[in-house]
């Protein structure tokens, strides 16, 4: 039996817009199981990224409970340009979490960085490069390596491939899938791309206007949608293909 590694209960989050306090999440509740890939789908502005930030502890203004049964989760961001410090080499970016954690010798860190880069498919030639000298896909690999170097069990991927070309998208998704299998990682995979979710996820949650309007296994939700919004999303996505 797998256990829950994240429990979210009755979560309301707020956003300050000038003087007014706008509620962006309404009574969100869900669990994430060990080793599962949970999809989170919704249009932009539906509160997906806010939910991610609350879970990560980056958003202070919320009510409800978020219980982690693992160490702090890490995040893979959407824009591989902005998520890497332009002044830090690949080595430094991947090494930084180890330096902050402390307790590793220089040699240990170098070994771990090399091993991690190998896992994401980058070799030693990339160690001293700056982000400007990397392609979008390579940057996303570095970003993933930096997120995984401390071996978290749980990673939130916020639109991890939507800024990439189609072929590179497939490569990065493959990588995420392999890492999921090899390291037993759990993901909360945020995407507006239903095809990505269908391919990667076991369960999926549909979000609209800050509420989770439908949730279930990918088969249930995609084959027999109940909520009008889900049907509309599916129609839009299948129509475009």
């Amino acid at each position, binding site marked *: 039996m797998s256990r829950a590694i994240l429990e979210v209960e009755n979560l309301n989050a707020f956003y300050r817009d000038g003087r007014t306090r706008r509620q962006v999440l309404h009574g969100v509740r869900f669990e994430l199981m060990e080793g599962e890939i949970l999809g989170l789908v919704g249009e932009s502005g539906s509160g997906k990224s806010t939910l991610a930030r609350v879970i990560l502890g*980056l958003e202070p203004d919320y009510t409800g409970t978020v219980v982690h049964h693992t160490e702090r989760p*890490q995040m893979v961001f959407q824009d591989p340009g*902005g998520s890497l410090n*332009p002044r830090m080499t690949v080595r430094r970016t991947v090494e930084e*979490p180890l330096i*902050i954690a402390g307790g590793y010798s220089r040699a240990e860190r170098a070994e771990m960085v090399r091993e991690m880069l190998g896992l994401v498919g980058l070799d030693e030639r990339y160690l001293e490069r700056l982000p400007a000298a990397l392609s979008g896909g390579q940057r996303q690999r570095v970003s993933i390596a930096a997120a995984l170097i401390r071996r978290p069990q749980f990673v939130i991927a916020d639109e991890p491939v939507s800024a990439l070309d189609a072929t590179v998208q497939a490569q990065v998704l493959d990588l995420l899938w392999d890492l999921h299998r090899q390291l037993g990682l759990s993901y909360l995979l945020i995407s507006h791309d239903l095809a990505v979710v269908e391919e990667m996820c076991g369960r999926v949650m549909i979000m609209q206007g800050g509420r989770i309007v439908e949730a279930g296994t990918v088969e249930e939700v995609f084959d027999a949608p109940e909520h009008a919004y889900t049907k509309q999303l599916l129609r839009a996505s299948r129509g475009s293909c």
Partner: protein
Amino acid sequence: MQNAELRARAMRRRNFTLIIGLVLTAGLLLVVVGGNLLWPFGAAEIGAGGRLDSPSLTHLFGTDHVGRDVFARVLDGAGTTLLVALGTVLIGSLGGLLVGAVAGYFGGWLDEIVMRISDGLTAFPSVLLALVAMSFTGAGMWNVVWILGLLFIPSFARVARGEFARCRNLDYVKRARLIGASHLRIMWVHILPNTLPVFLSTVAIGFNNAVLAEASMSFLGLGVQQPQVSLGRMLADSQGYLFNAPWVAISTGAAVVLLVLAFSLLSDGLQRKGLRRIRFLRKT
């Protein structure tokens, strides 16, 4: 056609403003330092030549009303001016960086308070405020340095604040928070290096302003005091014989202009370099 365009682009790419600014600044520093060491006449040497001699090979810029070598005095004065500018910019930029970094990074009411104070201070010309302050502390070089330095803090703080506020919300800073980096580490290791292109250009323009402010204050008699030489002081003195011996005023004025030109070219060049970086990062 295409070749010409490529060449034109390459020319544009080469940052001539920065190159000229660097060369001019380095050249002036070299002349000031080297000249002070090597030039045979001292700045205070009365009767090094005749009174108000016109420029010659022995006295490049002629002599003043008591026969002192003007070139030696310009070198010495420029040295003083640069020293004052250096001190001012050091105090102003370090103080401004500290205040602006904290205000920009943490934001909120702290930011409001700090920036309103800085607005209030920038509403007055800094030379005017400095003059008021000097009326309490008295004249003298070190008083000029720390008073101008303090008054320069708001303008540096403004730039630092903008940069830190811009970077605060970038994903790589969020990532640093996620891996548990302390605020200090985020500001120092993750943000500061990315603000340098913009901040350095502000530092260069700060030198520019400091040179002008020092010259103005010494011109008004409140800055550097005799027997110390400064460019502003010399300009004030040279007024007395502006028509008999214009070379004193002209060469001193030219020294001020050259210094200001060097620093503003440097600042422009650095700014252009910074902008290009940002544009490049946006494109990729």
